[in-house]
């Protein structure tokens, strides 16, 4: 048993199917699809027109009036909304002054303030540099989400941002747990945030990696991913600190594994060597064997290459048991939220542990022989979930796997 255990005491999310954790839990159990027409910007000239957009998101319903929204991007606002929800669930509202020096923020970023900067850049191309409005650029960097959170709560602990494309959120959670184990912080607000933007939308369109309708993870007829947006935040805390303040503990971060394909910038390594190495490293870090995993939250983007590679990787790591472990892709409901994906999926994993269910893979109809796993198609399943593996694979060959567990005082021996 590890003496330096890291527990989850709060969760928050904004995504296409929920604006808080309770709604998210309900929607995951019901297998709700958040994919529809994108209305944030005009998609007329694009190859595809759908996305998992967060609809009717009003930052003011989440962020108190004393914090100015003027210099915050949509991405920053979603991160802040999820943070405030997670802190409230953790019983840290209003934020205790005595904790500010010992509380850190680690965010996984993506496009950051791109959505707001795009019209400014378009204007620059037309009229030149003389009249660039400054406000949108204030929130351009994806580091600004962590900065706003820390400034709003007056935090002085470690603060940083990871940007490893589609694995940013998971990498941020892994490092946040490390900071607590190093005793660099008692509490860390961690997760990821990602807005839809024209640049990202056109990039994935140009790569022809997007399904024109909706993504169908692990399905024989899958054509690609559906882009999504949102934020997912966890409050991580040292076990000692959480017990001392009698916080409700939702689960435990058991391990993190990171690897690189070193094969191709965008295409996954068909041999799945990098994915296998990340999953194995995460299980080793957690000190558990593949037999102890009850559920795998797949990266499951629904691109032909990813799903085939991931199924192969899971079979390599889990051997004969691979076909009996439930594996699902929540991206079928919330789309691929890129920098936020690993973090929103971490929230889904915590809910699966708490409410004893496996979220479904929706839109999965035609089985693909190359992906013949137990994919929990269509509807959620009741099950005791004590140990979860969550995969995030990214451009650049950046793979991150996280292991979460149900909390028990004795370290979960069973």
């Amino acid at each position, binding site marked *: 048993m590890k003496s330096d255990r890291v527990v989850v005491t709060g969760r928050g999310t904004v995504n296409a199917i929920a604006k808080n954790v309770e709604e998210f839990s309900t929607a995951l159990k019901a297998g709700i699809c958040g994919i529809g027409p994108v209305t944030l910007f005009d998609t007329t*000239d*694009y190859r595809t027109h759908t996305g998992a957009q967060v609809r009717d998101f009003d930052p003011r319903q989440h962020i108190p009036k004393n914090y100015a929204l003027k*210099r915050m991007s949509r991405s920053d606002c979603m991160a802040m909304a999820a943070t405030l929800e997670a802190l409230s669930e953790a019983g840290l509202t209003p934020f205790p002054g005595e904790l500010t020096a010992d509380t*850190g*923020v680690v965010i996984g970023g993506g496009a950051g303030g791109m959505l707001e900067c795009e019209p400014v*850049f*378009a204007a620059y*191309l037309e009229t030149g*540099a003389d009249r*660039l409005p400054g406000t949108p*650029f*204030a*929130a351009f*960097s*994806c*580091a*600004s989400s*962590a*900065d*706003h959170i*820390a*400034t709003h709560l*007056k*935090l*002085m*602990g*470690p*603060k*940083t*941002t*990871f*940007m*490893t*494309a589609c694995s940013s959120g998971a*990498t941020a959670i892994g490092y946040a747990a*490390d900071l607590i184990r190093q005793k*660099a912080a008692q509490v860390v607000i961690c997760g990821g945030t990602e807005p839809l933007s024209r*640049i990202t*939308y*056109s*990039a*994935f*369109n*140009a*790569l*022809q990696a997007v399904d024109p309708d909706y993504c169908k993870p692990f399905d024989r007829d899958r054509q690609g991913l559906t882009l999504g947006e949102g934020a997912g935040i966890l409050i991580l805390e040292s076990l000692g600190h959480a017990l001392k303040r009698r916080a409700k503990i939702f689960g435990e971060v058991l391990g993190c594994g*990171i*690897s*690189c*394909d*070193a*094969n*191709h*910038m965008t295409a996954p390594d068909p041999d799945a060597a*990098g994915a296998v*190495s990340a999953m194995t490293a995460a299980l080793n870090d957690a000190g558990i064997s593949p037999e102890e995993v009850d559920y795998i939250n797949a990266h499951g983007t629904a691109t032909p290459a990813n799903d085939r590679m991931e199924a192969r990787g899971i079979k390599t790591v889990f051997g004969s048991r691979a076909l009996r472990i439930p594996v699902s892709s929540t991206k079928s409901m919330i789309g691929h939220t890129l920098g936020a994906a690993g973090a929103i999926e971490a929230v889904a994993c915590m809910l699966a542990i708490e409410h004893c269910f496996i979220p479904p893979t929706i839109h999965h109809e035609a089985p693909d022989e190359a992906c013949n796993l137990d994919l929990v198609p269509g509807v959620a399943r009741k099950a005791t979930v004590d140990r979860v593996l969550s995969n995030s694979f*990214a*451009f*650049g060959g*950046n793979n991150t796997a996280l292991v979460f567990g149900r909390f028990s005082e004795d370290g979960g021996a069973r």
Partner: protein
Amino acid sequence: MGLVTPLGIGRKAFASNLFSGVGGIRPIEGFDTTPFKSHLAGEVRHFSPMDFISARTLRRMDRLSQMVTASACMALDDAGIDPDGSKRNRIGIAMGTAFGATDVATQFAGTLFTEGPRRVNPILVPNTVMNAPAGHAAIELGLRGINTTVNHREASAETAIAYAANQIRQGRADVLLAGGGDILSPFFFTVLERFKALSPQDCSKEAARPFDRRRNGPVAGEGTGLLCLESLESARSRGATIYCEIVGWGLSGAPAPTNDWPDDPAGPMLAMQKAMAMAGVRPADIDTVSAAASGGIKSDRLEARALELIFNGDRQPAVTAIKGALGEAFASGGMRAAAMALSIHDDIVPPTLGLTSPILSLGVVNSALRKMKVTYGLVNACASGGTFATLIFGKMVPPESIF
């Protein structure tokens, strides 16, 4: 260490210019600066990527990726490590960048907004993400271990080094190339210039003057630097030259106005205090400080106050600010950490160029290098928005002298 900098390519050229007080700031050659008030930068020149990178991968790389990959090649070569089959799963990269490939991003967006989404070039897409340089370097060198990219403004590279050091301590990797870098590009420079982030912010002459009373904003810079980090046992077992040991690090934040600096020096002080606590040293033990100071009006004042409050005893460190030679290269921590490693290994401290009238009451090394024993050196990073990182490096005691 591997370096692609305004002071030269590779350790020897970098060290020779840095320690002899040759600056890298000159009139910009990379693009036309006629419309701007600022015309100077620390630009990387005479960089020939073909010297380091295979033709097959080179054509897929953007300029920052080329610089990072070249730095990675040089770092492994300098360390005497051949990343062959058996070892490569345990060798990786922790990279820091503040803005990434701004040249590719503007090229991609330029097509999108002038010709429409059907005309954008898919070949550019992989290089628009911040983790592209670390990904390209991993592909070129076959590095399959931990690979990550920190993207938090001016503290990106120091944070990446702290991240890497911790991963090695945890036993999750044998060797990590850690550091970072950023590049200059026309649109990025335009944004910095239009928002008055650069010297001259007044009517006086454009120049980088760290900690100087006449400072009027930083001069932009670019460059990459990666350090090869490995466990002591691993380095000793293969008889490697050890420049120094990473003995401590500290990360902190402070409430700050958006993209601006806090007034209260508590944030940078906390990062230094945490790093010293981890290293088990007191302020009096620190021989030299590589300050983050760049000539920024608020940021230099903030760091000067923090240094004065930390180092208030009888024995004070010799402070240097090498952004006077490099310019503000944003994720500059790889280059600055390399400079500190050389200071400790060779017992010399580089000069602060551009400083004549200091605002800092501590002793600053200016005009010429100082020869002095350097046992502990501290490297500071201060990022706008209130993020701070401190690294402490220590002299490696030869194993026989322990007894």
